[in-house]
């Protein structure tokens, strides 16, 4: 069976500005795939390539085995899309807007639309220009979900939604996954992804840096250890252990904070010969993992 999304060497330059470079991506059917990276990393460029809004400079891609360029209309029949920079027709009502797009799809979506509108508490009979930002976003969500597509491509989907609605949205994604459908979720905001994603790809400056499950990313992270001593200690003693970095030494040299990659055993052994009072381990913080991936290099930003 074909993958939901597969790209090979997909590349897009805007003139000589790189948008996304040599992207090899594989999203399996039935998973929720988070695509995260800072602003301007190339997330939106990737999505717009997948939907044939942009023509690749090099490489190719397929969705459900269909070529993203040649078979685009067929692909779009099976995909629901929520753009990150949502634009709607201001003078239409929500209902007219959704009716227009369901007619473009050639299907009747009235039942699903009604159900989703009730679920997200959206009044469809007002003009879009009267909607708040959150309500406009809901129209976008309904438009992406109303035809019950096999693949959802969502670009920063929860922008403008209040926490309750974000929760509702996360539940919707869980249901979608339970039905065996696929979600490609792009975001620069970790919690949006963390809540629902099975696997995450990190993109930065136009390149896909790493793909792993969330627990995989957690295990890669370094653990932090705080050791409280009864009397001041010499940090050099710990710094010399392999894989250990001294973060700081506080409270007159009695509180030592370390970051450890790999086994904690040599550190515990070294500490036990000293006047230890407490040892505290800080849980690996996913934010820090991703921040470390985002990196400090903020040179020329490729296009988003």
């Amino acid at each position, binding site marked *: 069976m074909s993958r939901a999304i597969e790209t090979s060497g997909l590349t897009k330059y805007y003139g000589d*500005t790189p948008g996304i470079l040599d992207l090899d991506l594989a999203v399996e059917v039935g998973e929720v795939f988070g695509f995260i990276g800072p602003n301007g990393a190339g997330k939106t*460029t990737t999505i717009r390539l997948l939907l044939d809004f942009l023509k690749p400079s090099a490489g190719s891609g397929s969705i459900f085995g269909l070529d993203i360029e040649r078979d685009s209309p067929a692909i*779009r029949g099976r995909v629901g899309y929520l753009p990150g920079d949502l*634009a709607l027709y201001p003078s239409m009502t929500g209902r007219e807007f959704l009716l227009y797009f369901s007619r*473009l799809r050639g299907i009747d979506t009235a039942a699903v639309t009604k159900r989703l509108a009730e679920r997200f508490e959206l009044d469809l009979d007002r003009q879009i220009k009267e909607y708040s930002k959150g309500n406009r976003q809901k129209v976008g969500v309904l438009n992406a979900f109303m035809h019950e597509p096999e693949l959802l491509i969502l670009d920063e989907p929860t922008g403008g939604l209040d926490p309750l609605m974000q929760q509702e949205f996360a539940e919707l994604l869980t249901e979608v996954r339970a039905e065996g459908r696929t979600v490609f979720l792009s975001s620069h905001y970790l919690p949006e992804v963390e809540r629902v994603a099975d696997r995450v790809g990190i993109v930065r400056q136009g390149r896909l840096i790493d793909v792993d499950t969330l627990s995989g990313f957690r295990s890669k992270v370094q653990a932090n250890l705080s050791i409280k001593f009864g009397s001041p200690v010499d940090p050099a003693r710990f710094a010399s252990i392999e894989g250990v970095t001294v973060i700081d030494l506080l409270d007159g040299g009695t509180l030592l904070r370390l970051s450890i990659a790999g086994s904690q055993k040599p550190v515990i052994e070294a500490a036990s010969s000293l006047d230890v009072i407490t040892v505290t381990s800080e849980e690996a913080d996913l934010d820090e993992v991703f921040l470390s991936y985002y990196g400090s290099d903020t040179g020329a930003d490729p296009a988003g």
Partner: protein
Amino acid sequence: MIPAILGKTLRDRRRAVMGFGLGIVALAVWLGVMFTVMRESDDFSEFMNNLPAGLLSAFGIDSATFLSAAGFLSSYLFTLFAPLFVLFFVINAAANEVMAEERDGLIDMVLSSPVTRTRVFLEKTAGVALAALALVAVLTVSLLVVDPIFDLSLSVNGVLAAGLSLWLLGVVFAALALVAGTFTGRSVMAGGVAGSLAFLTWFVSGFSDLYPPLETFDRASPFTWYQEPDPLTNGIGPGQLWLAATAAVLITVATLMFRRRDLSTERTLPAATRITRLARKRRGRSVRAAWLLTGSFRKTVWDRRRSVWGWGGGLGLLTLVLFSVWPTIASDAEALSGLITSLPREVFAMFGMSDPAAIVTPAGFVSSRTYQAIGPILIIMFVVRGVSMALVKEESDGAFDLALSVPSSRKGVIAAKATGVAFSTGLVIVVVTAAAVFGNLAWETDLDAGRILAAGAGLGLLGLFFGGLTMVAWAFGGPSFPAARITAVVAMATFLLNGLGSLTDALEAARVISPFYWYFGDAPPLAKGFEPAYFLLLAGALAMGSAAVMRIDRRDIAT
């Protein structure tokens, strides 16, 4: 069932069709009345036969057929007003329906559904073409209705042929806008390129009789094909075939381009990249922009910069041409003044000239076009558009919330924006005045330079007056109130009031309330100096502007 995109395109255009349609019907009735008045003047027909054809064509008149209703309508309606209406409508529709949707990111939404780009593009194009057809149908039907009432004895075939030709002309320019738009991906370019080409080719076609160097290009102008072989009299011919073929080719090119293009990359590219790219392209620009973007006033002027060049350039060019053809006309001045006395005054009054004899002077001749007919139309459109973009549209787009979130008073921000529009209007006037001063020297028309300045000032003030009116309508009516449309209606009504007021005693008194009366009075602007009545325009503009600022300061800003 009508396909969804086509249906939406038509629905979006229905108001414009009705608005333009209403204007075009009014025009047809009006011209019917004018023709009846003219036909009853005997001297006139006798005179027409003795006039040199080249001379008359400067006024859009074909001497051989002018005396028939068909000839008269060909001259006034079908060579001047109807194409102006239809092209304005169709270029705007094409630029908005396809290109603006790309600019606003809406095309992403449309194309996320399983439709091919070709289908989207062709449905939209068809929608624009059908809307234009509806507009042309309104004109055609109203002509057929007016025909028996005024006893014009038009041929039904002729009216249909002229309508068809007009529609094809519209489709050609819609297609040009689409080509320019799909090539650049920008709606501004779509409208700008098609509009400029329309003006240029109209000009070539209209003035080639008078200006031999233009003759070479005459055959390449869609306007020449459009009037070939004068469809209103002779039915359709090869010209219409040319138009249809050109439209088909252009639409095919645009479709192919649209299929292959990256869509709305301007939105995908982050701002920083765009600026670097621009800076690379035109070194120093970012610095100048930084200087210009330091306040509401400067930003407004900066936003209007292209319009200033476009509108000022167009009007300036027209002025130069008028000066350049004057010597030809002057050589036949005697014949011309004979014509003028033979024509009923109503004909001139409807073009804003209450003293027809003045037209045989250079001041009157240039004024008749630059300062009394086309100039006021353009300058009023420029100002009203400026107010709409800088104020009305910013409010309805929600950009006002940001503009007003800075620590300056609301009055200050609004006043600065209005002043920005006024200043850019001044720049347009400077361009036109410079053209007039140059034309005056180059063709030795011996006009008084002071009066040229005064005429320009009056023109600018006339524009600002209507800009003030738009502001007041907007301030009191809110952002969804049709302020610009109401201004247009008032402008048309007061223009007619001035013209007709000079003829009928009943309207004579009412005439004094027309801003056009304050500006034109009974003499061409170039023939008089700075009139006290100009202060009335200025005072009106200032009063309305201030009232608007006061009102805005107190009302809710729309979100």
